[in-house]
């Protein structure tokens, strides 16, 4: 609407006629009914609204001919904040001093103002995470041995007794940090009720001389839903081909692999106890004890015999008694011979060639010597055999798995 400027059509010292009043009336009607208000009508600083509404979807609030805009986009239902040429800045302004708190750059980068840090997972106060702190300090928690039946998980924050896990879609806190192979897990499925419990996967029996893969799984049923997780022991490995199955069992993105434990030494006696271990941050699992048998090396028995012939172990992968878990890329095998020396070979079955060996013990095969042990640090491969090459004297010979590097931790 243009500036109001009514034509002064009346004549001085005469009575106005109806037509003269009508002329003025028509101008006023045309002005107020036929046009709209313009900036020239508005007082500086005068537009104070209790609400300001853009009439229809997609009507924008523009700055300077669309250089910047705020807009509700009906096609996507998005609220659009756009700056066409510069960058989008959020700031705190105290008096005349402005401090930038956040900038969305033209590169797409998000820059946080001085002193500020990004925090994620704020929707769950128990696991809210300072991102910078997480980058500096977060380590996936290690599994820790407790006793024959129980493992725990590392306290990996500055809060005593707390374990947090970065998972594929959120950060969780491990609500039950003790896993017993004697109990079943509860809380990882939507149908579960009651308190969350770490344990074996439901309906999975505890078996002797078996490897168990341990997963951190979000609590999705029962009393502890909401940013919590438990540990679940399973015999399904985390190799790529099993990911879909694990997604089905635990929910897509709701699990993270923590490591592997072993139930049973496969020594014929101690077959249903967790083998003591240490995990390091680099995925190396080292067994830390021998069995109740004589000091014949630490770890799992893969082959054992009392004989005067060479002792062989054909590399085999799986969760069984004398198998190496498929997550193991390489590791340490230990050879033992009672009272005599030996040579320890890693043999390619296809060519019968020795591709690695350790013979750091001298011996005369027919004479009694010190009891010998030797280790081989080797890549684990199919169609290879570990051989303890011995002399002609019958002795007790063993091959043990002493350590492995877990490729998936």
């Amino acid at each position, binding site marked *: 609407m243009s500036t109001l400027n009514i034509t002064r059509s009346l*004549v001085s*010292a005469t009575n106005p006629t109806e037509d003269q009043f009508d002329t003025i009336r028509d101008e006023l009607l045309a002005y107020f009914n036929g046009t709209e208000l313009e900036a020239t009508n508005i007082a500086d600083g005068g537009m104070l609204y209790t609400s300001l509404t853009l009439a229809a979807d997609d009507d924008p609030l523009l700055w300077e001919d669309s250089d910047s805009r705020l807009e509700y986009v009906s096609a996507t239902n998005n609220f659009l904040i756009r700056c066409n040429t510069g960058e989008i800045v*959020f700031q*705190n302004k105290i008096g005349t001093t402005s401090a930038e708190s956040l900038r969305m750059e033209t590169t797409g980068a998000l820059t*946080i103002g001085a002193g500020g840090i990004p925090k994620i997972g704020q929707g769950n106060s128990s696991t809210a995470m300072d991102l910078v702190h997480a980058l500096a300090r977060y380590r996936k928690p290690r599994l820790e041995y407790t006793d024959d039946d129980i493992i725990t998980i590392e306290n990996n924050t500055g809060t005593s007794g707390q374990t947090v896990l*970065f998972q594929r879609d959120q950060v969780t806190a491990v609500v039950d940090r003790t896993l017993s192979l004697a109990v079943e897990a509860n809380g990882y499925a939507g149908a579960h009720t009651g308190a969350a419990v770490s344990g074996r996967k439901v309906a999975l029996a505890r078996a002797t001389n078996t490897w168990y893969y341990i997963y951190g799984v979000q609590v999705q049923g029962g009393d502890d839903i909401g940013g919590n997780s438990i540990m679940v022991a399973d015999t399904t490995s985390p190799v790529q081909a099993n990911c879909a199955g694990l997604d089905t069992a635990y929910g897509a993105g709701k699990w993270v692999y923590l490591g592997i434990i072993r139930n049973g030494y496969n020594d014929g006696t101690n077959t249903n106890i967790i083998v003591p271990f240490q995990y390091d941050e680099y995925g190396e699992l080292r067994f830390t004890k021998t069995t109740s048998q004589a000091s014949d090396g630490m770890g799992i028995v893969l082959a054992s015999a009392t004989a005067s012939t060479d002792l062989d172990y054909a590399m085999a992968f799986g969760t069984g008694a004398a198998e190496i878990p498929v997550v193991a890329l390489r590791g340490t095998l230990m050879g033992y011979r009672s009272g005599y020396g030996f040579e320890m070979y890693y043999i390619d079955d296809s060519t019968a060639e020795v*591709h690695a060996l350790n*013979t*750091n013990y001298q011996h005369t095969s027919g004479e009694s010597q010190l009891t010998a042990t030797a280790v081989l640090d080797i890549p684990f491969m199919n169609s290879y055999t570990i051989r303890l090459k011995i002399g002609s004297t019958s002795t007790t010979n063993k091959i043990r798995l002493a350590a492995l*590097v877990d490729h998936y931790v």
Partner: protein
Amino acid sequence: MSDLSLTKNYADTELLYKADIDDMLTELEAKTNGMIDSDNVASGWATLGQLTIDKDLTLTMGTTDSSSVELDSVTLDFTFSNTYSTGNTIFKVASAEVARIDGTSNNLEIQDDVYFKDRNTTYSLFRLLGTYRKPVLVYIDGDSIDMENNTETANQSLVVFPSGPVAVTEDTAAAHKYRRLETGATANGYGSTHTGAADSGLRVDVTLAANTWYFIYAVRVRYGDNAGNNFIMVMDTTEPISSNETTLDSRYGSGEWVYLGTVRRGFGDTATTTLVSWQQDHQGWTYFVDRGTADDFFGIRVASETISSTTYSNLFTIAAGTDGESIPSIFSALKLDIRAIADGDSDIGANFEFRTAAGNSLHNLPSIGNEQIADGAQGFIIKVPNTVGAALGAKRLSTSGDDYTVKLFVSGFLDHYV
């Protein structure tokens, strides 16, 4: 605008004069022109089809300019201001808060996760922090290298570049643009002159040579038909050390390359133009898993000597480099396999030492025995620091009996830069 008074100077019994009318019209004009404000409009009146604000003018919220939005004519920044230091700027979707800027700390507090929209819409910050592992290199055959399938999606590899995460899905049994590198191919798609389909391969201007170490990079495709959120593998002879970063940035784009690992072409004395098969782990170790010829051990043969003297002599001295028996400087440790070949009778054995350049012994290594089991073999495995000038030496314990032939293999390495 103040109230309209329309001053009445006349009485009911008086004639209406022109001046009376004109005075009222003048007042009406004065009140209308430039004086209308929110007092004059009905509730809900401010429903606009469009509202445009000049640069440097603010859309202000609150009676004391508490919050405002402004487009700056100089910087062209679109600025949202909150004048309360203790107040927060809050973002909501529907009625739920999704993020806030803390007015006191400047912290950006996000209720849930962060996604990298530009580079990839799937791999969030939680996911990267929780489950991402840089893909390892996978040996396929003497001329081919794959990249690990490191997500739960079959045939997919995810690489976090400094510029953002990129995932590529490709069945390398059917195609080999991205996740398979064939040593006979020339890499395409990383340079500004590149056109056509992307391909993994040897960097342009690098020659495929025998007995040479090659450094493998994931490089984002920025040119040609597949430019965008794709990457290729490039085989290069430039190490990823700090002093080379400028070169690599110039070659592949700043923030557009990630070092994946080192491969070796050539076993040493034999099979000098085939990739030496390996297993790479996520801890930086690569173990070689094949030998060049019968009676060799895993890895690259760097020495084959007959030990006859009772005085130490060096079998192998570490030298930095990328060809022959030299060792890339990015390795922090080496795994060495020693194999002694004797005739099986009671020969006097040999002693070994690993020495630094200054002649100091780092390790007194075990002797190889006086005797071996019939048809047996002798040797051992050690891990040593990759120190230029350091050497593995050996001597006979006695000159009696047969001499020993000793072979030395680099059977693995710890890569400091993976």
